């Protein structure tokens, strides 16, 4: 248990540290904060997707646990992995239908909570 906590900390910290470096890079290049954030997310997602495609990300996950699953690269992994898996069942019923089997709940409940949070904010602070 302790070992898993430590490895998750190291991996998660490393990925987010890398994210910070990329964000700073984009800021230095003249993007404002909002644009830089989007660009950084895109880079990390690309990295996660690429490493999943190369068959490397699952090995990282075995070592790092949540440290690899929680950052946005893990989210990318959770979509690319099923897409690769179900390629054999065709592009529509395989990839298309089943790409979000793992990420689906994240999207559904993420949206639900955001709507609820917005409703609470509206109730407390008005439009």
């Amino acid at each position, binding site marked *: 248990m302790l070992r898993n906590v430590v490895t998750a900390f190291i991996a998660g910290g490393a990925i987010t540290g890398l994210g910070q470096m990329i964000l700073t890079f984009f800021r230095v290049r003249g993007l404002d904060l909002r644009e830089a954030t989007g660009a950084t997310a895109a880079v990390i997602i690309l990295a996660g997707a690429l490493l999943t495609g190369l068959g490397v990300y699952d090995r990282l996950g075995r070592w790092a646990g949540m440290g690899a699953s929680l950052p946005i690269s893990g989210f990318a*992994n*959770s979509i690319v992995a099923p897409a690769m898996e179900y390629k054999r069942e065709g592009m529509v019923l395989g990839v298309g239908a089943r790409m979000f089997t793992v990420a689906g709940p994240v999207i559904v409940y993420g949206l639900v909570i955001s709507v609820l949070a917005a409703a609470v904010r509206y109730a407390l602070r008005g439009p």
Partner: protein
Amino acid sequence: MQEGTQATTTLAAGRAGTRTGPRIGQRTIAFSSRPRIAATAAVGGPMEGDGPLGRLLDVVYQDSLLGEKSWELAETRMLCEAVELAADKAGLAVGDVDMLVAGDLLNEIIASSFAARHLDIPFLGIFGACSALTEAIGIAAMAVDGGYARRAIAAVCSHHDTAERQYRYPTELAVQRPPTAQWTVTGAGAVVITAGDNDGDTGGSGEYRGDDDARPRITHATFGRVVDMGIKNPFDLGSAMAPAAADTIRRHLADLQVGPDHYDLILTGDLSRVGLPIAMELLAEDGLDVSGVMDDCGLRVYHPEQEVGAGASGCASSALVFAAQVFRDLQEGRIGRLLLVSTGALLSKTSAHQGENIPGIAHAIAMEAPGAGKERGR
């Protein structure tokens, strides 16, 4: 009228623990013709090749995809090749085989069905989860002992990746496995069963490469009942299956009215590091000390360094260990009497999501070394 009375008497006598006809005790079948195991074959993937059974396997594939387009096709091909190899070793052409009893872990047992399509043998598909091997051997032995088949093959397969994508997660997903989880074996095993009373000649069109009577015999089968002890964790199947294994072993020994030391080895299918001690403890609670003779196939497929959690699982766990290793021990007389007990966890992704328990089942097959029966004066 008389037939009805006879049937009732047989039933009552069976329950009393005596022998009437083919049944002994409550749940055991004794095969009076003692069918022979003419040959076995075992094939495995790269990890299995790196394990302790490595050089004993007939074929080790370097690629778990076998160059096929999907893992399911690879698994099907492994089963085909195991059956063909076993038939060949027994001096049979595949066309000589009267019956194929086969099963696997996939939905609708497609690996077995599509293997049977290729093999062209009358096919009885079974589902027993990881207990499929002994279930298949039991059914095949019944058919041969009863004269309903002259030559039958019992075969099973499993594949780590087909099991992962069906029961758990896509294979490229980053997940951590808990230490109680097991590793599904990628492999297939086949057992050729022929009539016990034909002087060793399998009657096939090929050339048998072995001594006439130097083949082990199947003496008994005890089919298990489903045992549910309320286990729900699909990452700890050893605990779910252990009660079923203990139940079947206890019943088998009681029916034969013998103790554990009647056997040189009681070998369960895939209880592994978590389930084996539980099964042994449950048997000890009933006064059966199996510590000297009991072992598990799940502990014999991989080296600890291969990082397989609690051990091996899958239909091929018992198939590879039995077909590649223990059958040889029986054949060469290192083991006199074996009780092989493959164990299965009866769950599906649906049942697990609906919060159902995971019941277990175990079927026991008793086998003996060639000539052992004669020595013990039977």
